[in-house]
C-alpha cells in the first residue's frame, strides 16, 4: 500500500455512498477557489435529515472551507469563488434569488473558538431572533432564552445570572452558549467547525452529548480533528484529503472497514 497521495489522486472519484434517502442538503460538483488556488475539487455529498455528518481529514484538507461554503460564510472572503451546486431542500443557496442573510437563519453555525458577544447571556441568546423579527414581547424572549439554554444544557448553570456577561463563563459554557445562541434562531441545519478543539475533555463530553440530543431535531454537519469524536457522534463520516472527498460511508464502516487506502492510512494514524 502506498501513501503517495498526489499520484493516487489525479483522477480521483469519491468512493462509498454519497447519497442519502432523505437529503436535507445536496452538494454536487463543488469547486472552491481562493484566487488561483483551488481548495476544494469536485466534491459531491448529501447530508441527510436529522443526521450527524462528520468531516475528518488532515490539516489543510479543505474540510473547514467546504463547511463554511454551506451557509455562504465564505462570501466575506473577497478572493473566494465557488462553482457547482449546493441545495438546501430544493433551493440552490448560491442562486441570486437566495439571500445570504435568510440562508444563515436556516443554516446556523458554531465556531472553533467560543465567540460569545461581549453582552449579557440573555442578550446573546435573543440577538439572532431579534434580528429576524422572530420575537416581539418580553414574555416570548424570556421563554425563548429558557428553552434555548435548556436545549444546550446550560440552563441549570446560568439561570440565576442571565444578565451577567457571556464572556465571563468558562470555555465549555461559552461554547454551549454559542450553541444555544445558534439554535435560538430555529435553524434547520447546524454547521460545527471543530467545536471542541478549544475545550477540555469534560466540556467536550458535554458538547458531544448535546450534539447527539440535537440531532433529533436538527441536521448537523461537524468538522473535527478527533476521530474518536467522529466515531462517537456521527452516523456518516466523510474523509477529505488535499481538497478532495476521498470516501463517504456510514461511520462504523469508515472506522472498521475503510474502502479507500488513504482513509485507512489516516484512521490508523499513518499520517495526519
Amino acid at each position, binding site marked *: 500500500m502506498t501513501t503517495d497521495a498526489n499520484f493516487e489522486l489525479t483522477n480521483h472519484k469519491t468512493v462509498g455512498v454519497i447519497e442519502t434517502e432523505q437529503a436535507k442538503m445536496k452538494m454536487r460538483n463543488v469547486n472552491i477557489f481562493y484566487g488561483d488556488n483551488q481548495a476544494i475539487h469536485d466534491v459531491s455529498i448529501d447530508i441527510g435529515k436529522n443526521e450527524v455528518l462528520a468531516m475528518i481529514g488532515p490539516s489543510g484538507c479543505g474540510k473547514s472551507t467546504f463547511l463554511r461554503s454551506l*451557509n455562504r460564510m465564505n462570501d466575506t472572503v473577497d478572493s473566494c469563488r465557488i462553482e457547482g451546486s449546493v441545495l438546501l431542500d430544493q433551493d440552490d443557496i448560491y442562486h441570486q434569488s437566495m439571500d445570504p*442573510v435568510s*440562508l444563515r437563519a436556516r443554516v446556523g*453555525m458554531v*465556531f472553533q473558538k467560543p465567540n460569545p*458577544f461581549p453582552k449579557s447571556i440573555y442578550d446573546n441568546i435573543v*440577538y439572532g431572533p431579534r434580528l429576524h423579527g422572530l420575537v416581539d414581547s418580553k414574555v416570548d424572549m424570556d421563554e425563548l432564552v429558557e428553552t434555548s439554554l435548556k436545549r444546550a444544557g446550560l440552563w441549570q448553570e446560568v439561570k440565576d445570572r442571565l444578565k451577567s456577561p457571556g464572556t465571563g463563563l468558562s470555555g465549555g459554557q461559552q461554547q454551549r452558549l*454559542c450553541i444555544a445562541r445558534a439554535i435560538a434562531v430555529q435553524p434547520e441545519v447546524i454547521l460545527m467547525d471543530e467545536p471542541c478543539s478549544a475545550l477540555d475533555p469534560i466540556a467536550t463530553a458535554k458538547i458531544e452529548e448535546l450534539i447527539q440530543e440535537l440531532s433529533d431535531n436538527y441536521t448537523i454537519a461537524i468538522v473535527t480533528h478527533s476521530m474518536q469524536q467522529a466515531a462517537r457522534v456521527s452516523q456518516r463520516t466523510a474523509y477529505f484529503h488535499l481538497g478532495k472527498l476521498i470516501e463517504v460511508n456510514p461511520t462504523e464502516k469508515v472506522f472498521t472497514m475503510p474502502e479507500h487506502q488513504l482513509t485507512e492510512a489516516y484512521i490508523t494514524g499513518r499520517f495526519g
Partner: protein
Amino acid sequence: MTDFNQAERIQQSLKKRYRAELRFRWYGRLAVGFAMLCLLALFTDIISKGIGAFRTTAISLEVTYDLEQVGVTDLANKDELLYADWDALSKQALRNQFPEVTGRKDKRELYRLVSNATGFELSKALKANPDLVGKTEQIWVLADDDIDTWYKSWLAGNPYEERLTENQIAWLTQLVADQKLNLQFNTRFFTGGDSREPEQAGVRGALMGSLLTLAVTFLLSFPIGIASAIYLEEFAPKNRLTDFIEVNINNLAAVPSIIFGLLGLAIFINFFELPRSAPLIGGLVLSLMTLPTVIITSRAAIKAVPPSIREAAIGLGASQQQVVWHHVLPLAMPGMLTGGIIGMAQALGETAPLLMIGMVAFIVDIPNGVTDPATVLPVQIFLWADSPERAFVEKTSAAIMVLLAFLILMNAAAIYLRKRLEKRW
C-alpha cells in the same frame, strides 16, 4: 565534565543577561525621570510667571457720581451718555485724594494711576443703578498696568520703577501706607476680550474662539472620519482605487499644516467668500488637517475588532450593516475616540493654518457664533508674547495655563468616555 562546563557557561551568560536587564531598566528610569524633570521645569516656569495674572491691582477711590461734571443732564438720553466725559469722575476722585497736586503735568501723571477703562466702568455702574446719582462711594478701581507691575514687584521686594515718575512712586507709597492699594482676583481676565491695555486684556474671547473652532472641527472631522473609516474598512472593494485613496490619506497626515491654511484661504475665503477670521473657517481648515488622523486611527480600531465576533454575528444572519452597527462600532468606539482626542488636541494647539485665514487679527469682541470674527488660544498667546508691554509677560503665561487646562479637561472627558464605553471580551 561537559555537563559541568555547560552549567558553568549558562551561569555566566545568565549573569550577563541579568546585568543587561538591570542596565536597561535603569535606562528606562532615567529616561522617564528626565522627561518628568523637563515637564516639572516647564510647569514651574509657566506657573511662577503666570500666576500673578490671576490677580490684579486695584486703587480705592472715593467717587462722587456727579452728573454735572460729566456733562449729562438726562440718564435716559443715549447720545448724551455716549459722548459724556466719564473719566472726569475718576479724575475728580484722584484730585480729592491728592489735593496737593496742582500743575497740569503733575495732574496728567496722577490720572495715569488708574486704568483708562475706569470711566467706562463707572458709567456702567451708574446705568445699572441710577439711584447712585449724586451719591459718594468708596470703591475699588482698576489700576493701570504699570502700577500693577510696580505693586506686584514691590510686594516681591524688588520694585520695578522704570516706567514710573518720582511723583507717581511717592503717591503710590502713600496709597500703600493708607491701605488703598491691594490685589484683587482678576475676573476681567476670564470675562474680557483682548485689549491693547494689559490690565484690561482677557482670555475669554480666545477661549470662546477655540471652543467654537474645535466644535466645528469635531462636528465635521469625527463623523466624516468615522464614516470614511467604516466604509473603507468594511464595505469598499479592495482594488487599485481604494489602495490609491489609502496612500493619499496617509500622505495627507504628513502635509505641513500651513498648507491647509493656504488651501482654506484659497477655497473657503476667496472662492466661497465665507467671512474671514471666523471660527467656521478655522474649524473647516482644522478638520481637513485632523481628518487623516481620525481616519487612520479609526481604521486601526476597526481592524482590532476580533474577527470571531464578526463571524458570530454573520453566522446568525446579521447583514453587513448590522454587524457594523451592533458589534464593530461599539467595540471600536474607544479606539476611535482616542483618535478623535489626538486629532482635537492637535487642532487645539494649531496656529499656523489659522494665521493664513485671518484668525490672527486683533479682536476685542467675544465671538458669539461661528461666523463672528475670533482668535484662538494659541494665537492669543502668540499675540501677547509679541506685545512690548511688560505686563503681557504674565498674561502670556496665564493664557498658556488656560490652554493647558482646556487640553487636560478635554482629554479627561475623552478618557472618561472611553472607559465607560470600553467592553471586555
